[in-house]
């Protein structure tokens, strides 16, 4: 996962490489997602997020759609 100056740059780079399933996500949104996805990881009590908790973290960051379906 690489950082790009803009969504246009990211999608142009992806197109050249045939990454048809790729998505560009704003860093503010990823910051929000990180809080739910990575929060608490330094605690001894941390355990992997349940599928429901992952879905909640995704929703809480304002992300949705097929790309974010977790199976």
């Amino acid at each position, binding site marked *: 996962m690489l950082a790009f100056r803009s969504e246009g740059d990211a999608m142009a780079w992806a197109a050249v490489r045939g990454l048809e*399933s790729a998505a560009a996500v704003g860093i503010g949104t990823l910051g929000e997602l990180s809080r739910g996805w990575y929060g608490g990881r330094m605690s001894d009590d*941390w355990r992997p997020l349940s599928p429901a908790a992952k879905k909640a973290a995704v929703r809480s960051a304002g992300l949705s759609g097929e790309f974010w379906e977790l199976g």
Partner: protein
Amino acid sequence: MTAPTEAFAWRLRGHLYRRIRDTGAVPSRAELATDFGGADTEIHRALRFLADACVLALDEHGEVWMAHPFSAVPTPYRVETPAGAYWANCAWDAIAIPVTLDTDGRTSSRCPHSGAVIDLVVTGGRVEPGGTVVLLPVPARRFWDDIGFT
């Protein structure tokens, strides 16, 4: 894996993350065996358990390669924080490291398309500069299909 062995693995995970936080480096299996205690086979089995649980990624020698969001090896994303400096696995993890450590952080990289310098700054949980994006190459359900590529 038996319950006591699983418990050992989770305690090892906690030790591993504290060690990374405090030293900025991902320890080797031998270092874990010395610092945490335990035979190499026991450490190796515990790390494999954690890798199977998608908590870690191991290299071909069974050493920790990724302890998300931290990387054992240099990458384009070096995160500077008041707590120390760390290698992130990717751009998302460069944001996630300050979040994980509950601190601020800064990472300088270059846009792979334009070559422009990007200074990712996390301050109080806010990430800048606006307009910057991270390219996620595969959908979320496929993140762990090939974690190195992702």
